């Protein structure tokens, strides 16, 4: 083995690795070796050419959390300082560890295991899985064959793994991490002998207990067997004794399995195909009752559901509903589905119907009000909103709220139907706004800041009795260059007929680049 710390390699010439001016590809250490020798089998060492380590920052120190096989063969190991590793290996690829992403992968694997291999699966620590194989290994042709299948499956995903099967979770945990072999099978009742040769750390001890064990010269698990329990507990802590007992099977250690989230789901298979709206409604009612019972049990509320009807000729009819707020009110859901029954084309008849809750939310029961519901309460709009969205499309139902802008046509925006928007500043605003400001003809007005005396709009001449203004609104220069200097002067005027108009003039009447002094009508006051 090469001596660590004295390894010295000459560094690459800094200009040789730069891409040439002729467009040739830069020499890449990663792919050269494998592509030149296609007969060689792909392994981690030649896949990754450069040694790679993952680091995590703890306090001021960067510590290696894991290292690739190449890096381990060069003498790097987890727990080493990153600066030390960089000094030892010149072309080391250092990346940040992502513990959350690792955990997410483990969670996914555990869920997969629950679905495919055994109902009792759980994530073990930050780097492993526990599978309770009791009564399920024969489905895969025995433990040995199951292990090989599992390894192949993980290899396809890109993982290298070690598997140990033992009578106790503690022994399996220790052998998988410290056993050193890809597959370890322990015969029942021989756990204590199997783990006797492993280091004490294999027992999942606390760091303080490990330090104490090192001080007392206890290195192997087997060293602990001979010590009386009382002195052992006094020196290494009661937790150590418990871990030892768990690994030997004296104390039980149950695996708490992960429970995958199952969509609430109701299904009806029908004896005879149905085709009438009444029959479909009847089945929908039954499905909703089943689904609501499940939702009630799990304290969930429905946000969106999908009704799937299996037609005799093999086709599928799908109808979706959504609710504005989580709900498990059977009457409400039935009514919403009944409104959409006409969208189902039963064809030759429907032979099965499924209702699944696509999106659910937590919905706890509400506390009853102190007055037992006899007083005035604010009505709940959510059921009405759901019902109206069934009549018109979902964009048709909205509220209008404030948008931060002084330009009148940009000051409003559409919001969700259950939003609570805030109001606008109290400047006088018209009740109806024209879609586009309409130009006025033959305007007689004093410049710069008087309302017009008379104007013609849509072919009718108006004489102005009184007016208020101007309210000056500047263009929003951050939107476009054209609005940089633009100014609108708004006036509210009352015509001789009593009608009130909201007019504006482009330009402030003094500076030519603020507008061309043309007049427009923008809205109508009542």
């Amino acid at each position, binding site marked *: 083995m090469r001596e660590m710390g004295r390894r010295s390699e000459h560094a690459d010439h800094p200009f040789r690795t730069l891409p040439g001016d002729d467009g040739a590809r830069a020499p890449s250490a990663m792919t050269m070796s494998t592509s030149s020798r296609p007969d060689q089998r792909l392994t981690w060492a030649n896949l990754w050419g450069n040694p790679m380590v993952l680091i995590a920052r703890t306090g001021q120190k960067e510590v290696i959390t894991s290292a690739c096989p190449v890096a381990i063969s060069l003498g790097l190991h987890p727990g080493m300082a990153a600066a030390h590793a960089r000094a030892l290996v010149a072309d080391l690829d250092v990346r940040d560890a992502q513990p959350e992403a690792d955990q997410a992968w483990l969670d996914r694997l555990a869920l997969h295991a629950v679905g495919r291999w055994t109902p009792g699966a759980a994530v073990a620590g930050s780097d492993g899985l526990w599978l309770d194989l009791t009564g399920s290994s024969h489905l895969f042709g025995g433990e040995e064959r199951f292990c090989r299948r599992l390894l192949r499956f993980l290899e396809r995903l890109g993982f290298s793994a070690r598997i140990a099967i033992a009578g106790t979770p503690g022994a399996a945990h220790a052998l998988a991490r410290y056993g050193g072999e890809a597959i370890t099978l322990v015969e029942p009742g021989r756990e204590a002998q199997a783990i006797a040769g492993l280091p004490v750390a294999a027992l999942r001890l606390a760091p303080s207990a490990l330090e104490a064990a090192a001080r007392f010269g206890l290195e192997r698990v087997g060293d602990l067997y001979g010590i009386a329990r009382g002195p052992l507990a006094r020196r290494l802590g009661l937790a150590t004794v418990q871990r030892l007992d768990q690994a030997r099977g004296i104390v039980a250690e149950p695996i708490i399995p992960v429970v995958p989230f199952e969509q609430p789901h109701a299904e009806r298979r029908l004896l005879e195909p149905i085709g009438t709206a009444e029959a479909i409604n009847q089945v929908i009612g039954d499905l909703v009752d089943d689904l609501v019972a499940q939702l009630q049990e799990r304290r969930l509320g429905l946000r969106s559901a999908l009704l799937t009807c299996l037609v005799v000729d093999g086709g599928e009819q799908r109808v979706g509903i959504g609710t504005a707020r989580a709900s498990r009110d059977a009457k409400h859901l039935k009514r919403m589905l009944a409104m959409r029954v006409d969208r189902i084309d039963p064809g030759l008849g429907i032979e099965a119907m499924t209702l699944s809750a696509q999106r659910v939310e937590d919905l706890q029961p509400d506390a009853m009000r102190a007055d037992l519901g006899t007083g005035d309460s604010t009505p709940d*709009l959510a059921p009405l909103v759901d019902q109206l969205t069934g009549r018109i499309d979902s964009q048709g139902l909205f509220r209008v709220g404030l948008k931060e802008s002084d330009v009148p046509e940009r000051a*409003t925006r559409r919001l969700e139907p259950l939003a609570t928007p805030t109001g606008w500043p109290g400047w006088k605003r018209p009740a109806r706004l024209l879609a586009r400001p309409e130009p006025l003809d033959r305007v007689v007005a004093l410049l710069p800041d008087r309302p017009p005396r008379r104007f013609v709009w849509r072919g009718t001449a108006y004489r102005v009795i009184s007016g208020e203004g101007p309210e000056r609104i500047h263009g929003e220069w951050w939107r476009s260059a054209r609005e940089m200097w633009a100014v609108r002067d708004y006036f509210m005027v*009352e015509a001789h007929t009593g009608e009130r108009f909201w007019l504006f003039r482009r330009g402030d009447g003094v500076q030519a680049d603020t507008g061309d002094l043309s007049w427009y009508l923008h809205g109508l006051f009542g």
Partner: protein
Amino acid sequence: MPQPAALPAVSRKKLATLRAELAGVRSLRGPFLSFDVPMLDDRMAAGGIDGAGLHEIAAASSRLGDDAAASLFAAGIAARFASKPGFTVLWALSRFDLYAPGLEQVGLGPSQLLYAQGKNDQEVLAVTEDALRDGSLACVIAEVKAADMTATRRLQLAASDGKTPLLLYRRHRSRDQCPLTTNSSAMTRWRIGCVPSLPPPHPGVGRPRWSVELVRQRGGNPFSLDLDACDDKGSLSNPSLSVDRTAAPAGAASRAA
């Protein structure tokens, strides 16, 4: 008109009992809203707007100024129905040209107003009927161009079932024909137009004035009034003083602020 003589004590007591009974019956029937303008309330058979019925509103002419006045009149009534916190008004329409900041200024704030935009009159009427039967709204305003006798009858029944007032805003279909000439089963039918406002004592524009015309009401006579427009709470009021506008012809230029 001679003042009526003071009622005898027994009769006054009887009257109070009858009034209490009437109020009880009204509260069973649904919400009720009086205009708080004696001139207007006295001439209405019910003494105000029945909160479980259909009321039709149209502009006096096809001009857009009258149209805006009529929509503000509807918005003002709706704002007074929804004056309690947490109450909501639904405005169903097929063409959206309302300006929400303007509606807020007659008391119908953005958190009280929900819009439903349908593709055509049929969708608007369907939405309106659903909303009325639900009964969780303080008031419904529906803007339609055409609604025949069948449609208005359905809406009237839905309104009295759901105990929700409906203000059916009839838009003008043609320039000359008033939309209120067709038959309808509405409780009241209103025609609102702009009239020149009274000159304020200061330069500028005074409070707007409307001609409020009750074209038809159940159990009462039609009438026509000129009233001051909705304030920021949605209430109408009597004109403060009756000045003939023609008396101040020279004020036009001086009132331009």
